[in-house]
């Protein structure tokens, strides 16, 4: 179903439409939250919070074209709020990084990295080495596929900066990833 129709039915209070919307975008929202939090539990919580906020503001939202960037913005805000709170007050238990989801320890050798299977672990590890702004450039442009204009709005930076930075960010990521696994680009 078209997103526009779906949103219209959501606004009309159709629970089925809302469920379908959640189902359609849960993967994206969860991936966004996970990108910032790197912990499945926290990411799930933040994803749920994001959908609750979306639900609350759905009435005032008209333009289906802008739904995706709008959703990304809410997910980003919720995630950053949570990251800040966790930094100020780290969780009680041994709830540090989600080793299982993240893959091998940063100190692990290339063999271990290769055995970890999923390439995204490697990408996450490389992302960890990047500057924050470049990491967000990668997330928003390369991973989420937002337009440069949308990224400029989202991150509150000039469009020209987005254009210049997007290539730099890619190159930085390529450098980081080849440093971890020299065979990546071969």
């Amino acid at each position: 179903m078209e997103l526009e129709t779906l949103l219209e039915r959501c606004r009309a209070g159709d629970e089925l439409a809302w469920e379908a919307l959640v189902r359609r975008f849960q993967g994206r929202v969860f991936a966004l939250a996970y990108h910032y939090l790197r912990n499945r539990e926290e990411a799930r919580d933040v994803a749920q919070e994001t959908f609750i906020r979306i639900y609350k503001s759905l009435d005032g939202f008209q333009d289906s074209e802008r739904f995706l960037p709008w959703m990304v913005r809410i997910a980003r805000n919720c995630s950053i709020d949570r990251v800040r709170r966790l930094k100020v007050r780290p969780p009680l238990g041994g709830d540090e990084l989600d080793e299982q989801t993240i893959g091998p320890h940063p100190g692990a050798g290339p063999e271990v990295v290769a055995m970890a299977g999923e390439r995204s672990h490697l990408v996450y590890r490389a992302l960890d080495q990047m500057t924050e702004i470049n990491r967000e450039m990668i997330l928003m442009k390369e991973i989420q596929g937002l337009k440069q204009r949308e990224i400029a709005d989202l991150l509150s930076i000039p469009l020209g900066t987005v254009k210049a930075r997007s290539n730099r960010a890619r190159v930085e990521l390529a450098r980081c990833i080849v440093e971890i696994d020299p065979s990546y680009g071969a």
Partner: protein
Amino acid sequence: MHCTEFQERLFEWLEGRLEAAEVERMQSHAAGCLRCRELEELATGDAGLPAVEPPDDMVASIMAQTTGGACDRALLLVSERLDAGPADVAGPADVAGPADVAGSVEADPLLEMHLESCAECTSLAGALARLQRELPAMAEMEPDPGFVSDVMAATIGAAVSVRAAAPLQEATPAPHLVSRPAFDWREWVQGLPLAAPVSAFFERLTLRPRLAFEGAVVGTLAFVLVIGLPSVGVAELPSRLMAGVRQERLEVQSAVAENFGRAAEVGRAAWTTSASRLGEYVNISPSTAGTRSRFADMLGSWRQAGVEIASHLWEGEFSAAFARMWRLWTEPWRGDSNEEEGPGSRADNQDGQRYQS
């Protein structure tokens, strides 16, 4: 053939561009002319002298001392080219091959030259192309299967159901809880005789997770007050929970989890004490059997409400807990709905009878 002519045509000869007849003339001249033969040997490398090749790192070292290296520029161009070309610009081999460069960005022969000689950039170009293919796949990541229904429960509340609250129900089985129809809090809020802003506030309250937690803690306090009225020492529990309210959610969560079992336990003990005191009072009062049973009913319904509220809180169903508390507070004395007469008025009547007798 003169030496001048030999020297002019030497390179053409070595490159195999001379006719057979001319090659013969060149050979016969070289055979008879030492100087020209030496020249030929030098040019072909047969002279036994080492070939003079520039050292491998010479270009790099010149670049380092002049512009500071062309790699940055090369990689930016490679990255820009990824945007311009379709997805099939991939892999170092493709990147290096000018024929594969598609899109509006023209193949830059200088870039190709750099990539041919710079292994690092070739590897990075390969990584860039591969990232271009792999990153979009990270846009989505499935949460657990229960996620959607949790979101539904937290928003439209459709999935609000009473699940078993094991520790509480074990002590006080309440089978009616299981069969109770799902509570629609939205309907309930709309049905309240409240002004729109108040109802909107309530809606916000129940939808904001943080506030919901604060509400849960306040609800727990209310529960303790309702259940554990006057006696047993629950004094330190509210203050501990209130301290939790001011802290972050995670801590509140653990505070609630940590204290709740205790709260229920203390509440139940308090209840038993209170109930028996009330029972004593009823027994020593010059009352009718009706009053006694009224009291017993009231105590029973309070106790039941407490258990329901507790299990709602325990399950995180804050709106349902609020609703139950609200019902308890607004209609505390009303018994079963099939009674024609309000139990409160009946109790009054009985009290009246008591005083008359």
